[in-house]
């Protein structure tokens, strides 16, 4: 047998060398993977082993100043799936869709998505969650979840705002305090094998979520209710586009209430409350819908500015008194026309019946334009602008709500013309936000301190410990205590004897000022569109509240602030003061009147509308039916206030009736020429037509023309022979 040669042996040794090199190479490679890249690979591996389930932190509760819950988080369940772990997607989808009442294909699509986790359905109720748990489906997980809930629905919605589906604040304090409300989410970390089963190693970890902080608002739920109710009533009564009411505590700048109607329900922020609108919106393209949403979410008192009209005269008066250019007893003369301003024909609102000789106090009571133009002129542009700025106009108030506007004021004294100075003196040619105005008025009321409006009082934790307190902040001192006192007294007389009579509250000393302004749309005064407003301060001897009521585009005939906004503010003042336990101080005469005025609402349910009306009118009550198509023999099915409630005489009782819809909505417009205002109102109301008036006296023209066929609820514009401001 042959034996191995030297060459064979050499080759064997060569082979050993080659192999050794290979082995060395592989060992180095191994070391590189395990040691150099080890950590990196380990991290990635860890990621695939661990199933990190976020545990949501509970969003903080929003309380009113008295501890009433306005926004809470409620526990619900959310269904997730891990598509990779689902064994039989079709069958699973069928079961899941069945329990969750969803479309099977939609579920299947989710179960087969190429994602590690997919949300199947949010916020399911407990029964469904239990039913699903029972099925014990692989890859389907039911996780505890929280949902934002606003127990009062469309209550204070513009203050609270709302959150999106992931509970991130979008509007209102939900947005501005989102950081505090959110908290820190926890995590539930478990390790799992490639099939999703838990690994037998004990390295499961649970990090507790840190719940969000609770917010205590300055809002008082009860006062907010008063404001909301008053706003809604004013909206309906005046067929207005919008009504906003703000109640502020002058000393602190605390907002006690801020209501706007119409509003929305933050539980369903994308659905209008009005059924008709809902249907309309549903037909709109998406981008149009979004536009509508944004409009709906606009918080008028903060997001919009308007021309304040006569309410602004308070500022002029404050400036005049502070600068000493006028005293309460200064004499003025109103001849109806302001001739001192060059290049403009300005007139007093009662030019047809001038105020004649009057003191400054009388001038304020009469809201006489001539007086304020004179005061403005005495102040001069520089000083006027100083006070406009001093009272915070033209700058943001700094309220903790979204989208605040700063209004429009003259850029500088030099840019102001004489006519600007004159019109600004009585509140025209300037744009303010309601929040600016109420803050300025509060400064007048509290002795001259311009406050920063406060909406959030403090942040508290789960155990009620105060984490952060927001103190009232004085922005600056605008006028002296003395000026404040003097002006308050003057304003009181406006309510007791002047244009603000309707805001008079028996037993309380209320000061206030009316305002009526034509709306400015696209830089021009819009025909027949007004903003009626009223500011009130009460009680003037020790101001507890300042109230601003703004009625946007009233269309029920009346549009004077003194006639429609003053009673609204008055009602809020009265209810709020009695709620705040401010002792009324009645005069003997008032006491008698009060008892006389009180009426118990009778039960008129199940009576015909004719009968009900008769009963209510006999008691001195007014009534109203919400629907327009009613007949005299329609049956009342419900009423508000309920029987037994004590109300004032002249109060409005809402009646709800069963309605029969008319076959045809076609209405022939009648001839209104020569008729009085009252007559016109009667006729048009009977025909279920909306109307818009201009002027006083006898009707002279109308659109549409008599004989025109219009739809039910169409708008008829009527002009009267006496047109004034």
């Amino acid at each position, binding site marked *: 047998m042959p034996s191995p040669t030297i060459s064979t042996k050499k080759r064997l040794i060569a*082979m050993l060398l080659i192999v050794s090199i290979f082995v060395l190479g592989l060992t180095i490679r191994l070391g590189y993977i395990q040691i150099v890249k080890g950590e990196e690979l*380990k991290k990635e591996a860890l990621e695939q082993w661990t199933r990190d389930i976020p545990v949501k932190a509970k969003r903080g509760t929003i309380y009113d100043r008295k501890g009433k819950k306005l926004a809470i988080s409620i526990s619900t369940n959310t269904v997730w799936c891990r598509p990779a772990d689902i064994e039989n997607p079709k069958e699973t989808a069928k079961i899941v869709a069945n329990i969750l009442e969803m479309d099977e294909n939609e579920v299947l699509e989710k179960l087969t998505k190429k994602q590690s986790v997919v949300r199947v359905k949010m916020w399911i109720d407990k029964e469904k969650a239990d039913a699903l748990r029972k099925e014990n489906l692989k890859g389907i997980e039911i996780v505890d979840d929280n949902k934002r809930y606003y127990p009062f629905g469309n209550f204070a919605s513009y203050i609270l705002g709302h959150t999106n589906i992931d509970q991130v604040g979008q509007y209102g304090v939900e947005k501005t305090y989102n950081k505090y409300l959110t908290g820190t989410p926890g995590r539930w970390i478990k390790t799992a094998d490639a099939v999703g089963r838990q690994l037998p190693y004990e390295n499961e970890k649970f990090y507790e979520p840190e719940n969000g902080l609770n917010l205590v608002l300055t809002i008082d739920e009860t006062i907010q209710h008063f404001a909301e109710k008053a706003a809604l009533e004013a909206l309906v009564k005046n067929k207005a586009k919008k009504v906003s009411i703000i109640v502020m505590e002058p000393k602190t700048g605390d907002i006690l209430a801020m209501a706007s109607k119409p509003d929305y329900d933050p539980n369903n922020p994308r659905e209008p409350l009005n059924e008709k609108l809902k249907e309309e919106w549903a037909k709109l393209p998406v981008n149009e819908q979004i536009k509508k949403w944004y409009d709906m979410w606009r918080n008028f008192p903060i997001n919009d500015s308007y021309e304040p009209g006569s309410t602004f005269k308070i500022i002029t008066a404050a400036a005049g008194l502070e600068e000493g250019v006028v005293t309460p007893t200064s004499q003025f003369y109103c001849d109806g026309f302001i001739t001192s301003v060059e290049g403009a024909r300005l007139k007093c609102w009662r030019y047809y019946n001038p105020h004649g000789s009057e003191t400054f106090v009388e001038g304020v009571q009469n809201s006489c334009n001539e007086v304020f133009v004179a005061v403005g002129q005495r102040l001069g542009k520089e000083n006027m602008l100083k006070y406009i700025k001093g009272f915070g106009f033209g700058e943001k108030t700094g309220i903790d709500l979204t989208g605040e506007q700063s209004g429009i004021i003259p850029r500088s004294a030099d840019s102001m013309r004489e006519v600007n100075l004159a019109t600004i003196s009585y509140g025209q040619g300037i744009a303010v936000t309601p929040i600016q105005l109420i803050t300025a008025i509060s400064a007048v009321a509290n002795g001259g301190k311009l406050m920063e409006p406060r909406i959030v009082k403090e942040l508290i934790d789960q155990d009620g410990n105060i984490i952060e307190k927001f103190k009232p902040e004085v922005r600056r001192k605008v006028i002296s205590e003395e000026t404040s006192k003097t002006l308050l007294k003057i304003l009181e007389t406006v309510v007791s004897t002047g244009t603000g009579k309707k805001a008079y509250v028996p037993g309380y000393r209320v000061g206030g000022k009316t305002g009526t302004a034509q709306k400015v749309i696209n830089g021009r005064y819009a025909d027949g569109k007004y903003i009626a407003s009223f500011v009130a301060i009460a009680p003037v001897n020790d101001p507890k509240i300042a109230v601003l009521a703004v009625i946007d585009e009233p269309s029920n005939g009346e549009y004077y602030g003194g006639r429609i906004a003053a009673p609204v503010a008055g009602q809020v003042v009265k209810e709020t003061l009695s709620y705040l336990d401010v002792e009324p101080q009645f005069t003997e005469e008032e006491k008698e009147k009060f008892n006389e005025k009180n009426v118990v609402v009778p039960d008129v349910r199940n009576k015909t509308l004719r009968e009900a009306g008769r009963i209510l009118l006999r008691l001195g009550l007014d009534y109203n039916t919400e629907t327009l198509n009613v007949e005299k023999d329609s049956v009342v099915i419900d009423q508000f206030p309920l029987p037994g409630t004590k109300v004032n005489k002249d109060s409005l009782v809402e009646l709800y009736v069963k309605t029969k819809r008319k076959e045809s909505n076609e209405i022939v417009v009648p001839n209104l020429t020569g008729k009085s205002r009252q007559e016109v109102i009667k006729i048009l109301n009977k025909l279920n037509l909306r109307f818009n008036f201009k002027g006083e006296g006898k009707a002279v023209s109308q659109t549409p023309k008599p004989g025109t066929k219009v739809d039910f609820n169409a708008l008829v514009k009527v002009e009267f022979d006496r047109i004034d401001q």
Partner: protein
Amino acid sequence: MAKKKASDFTLMIATILLVFIGIIMVFSSSYPEAYYKLKDGYYFLKRQLMYSLLGVFVMIFFMNFDYWRLNKLSKLIYLGCIVLAFLIFTPLGTEYHGARRWINLGFTTFQPSEAIKLGSIIYFASYLTKKDRDIKNFKKGVIPSLIIIGFSCILILIQRDLSTSVTLGATLVAILFIAGIKLWQLFLMGAAGVAGIAAAIFSEKYRMERFIAFFDPFKYKDTVGWQVVQSLYALGSGGIFGLGLGKSRQKFFYIPEPYNDFIFSIIGEELGFVGCVTVIILFLLIIWRGIRIALNSRDLFACLLASGITSLITVQSLIHIAVVTSSAPTTGIPLPFVSYGGTALLVFMSAIGILLNISRYTELDRS
């Protein structure tokens, strides 16, 4: 014949240690699959233990079975291998995971390709011993050798098992190299081999995908790169000292059949770099002793047989480690002695038995 000496003790210890590590690692890595799928966590352990024990007997048998008898029996052995290869296509052949590579013997299954590897080595060594003087002759030596290599590879290739076929091919070429083939002819063959492998890769879609994935496994993590990425995760999370015996996470269905073609990554995960290097050293010991035995063997057949067996172990363990460390495209090669597999274990233990037997007839140890 000369007097028998004691066999190579180092080789035997290294082998037994590897088999021992294999039993433990097969148990550890197979437990999840055995537990969840077969409802018996010890399923693979029991079989591996049984075959290891049987393997020790087989090793001892061949240690005492004089190797030159294999020279005489070589033709018969090779014929047996051919028969086994074709038995797969009879009803006895069983399919597993879509590949028909096993023969069902009723009580157990048998993987002919494992036997063919050793059978071919024995036959080739015997053939080259006979054609000793013709090896430098292209017509008389090289061509017939190539035919034998080709035929042997085809026996395995018909089972659609390219990687085993390549392993065997490389082993037989290594024998040819030791036997003294001219180097330029070897390089030519090497080139032809590479071309052949390339052709094989391009002809099959899944091979092509794996080949592409090799360059950036993380890019194909969810598809063809999955196994390699999981293997790297295992090695990486093992670090220097490992997660500890039995504490692999990757064996929980992240790495498919972790007791088989990827057992080395589980070793890396549980025992770390230290464990891996230990295993590598044990293999290096076996390779070193194997080559030493070949060097000191007193006849050509013993020399070629010993180098063939050593080559087989070398090629297979290097490919396994290369695949696991993503140094080569993914392919299914079990780690000799360690991976689960009865036939493989018995064949490798026989091979070591043969080596040990040869070692008993080596010339005096000079060291």
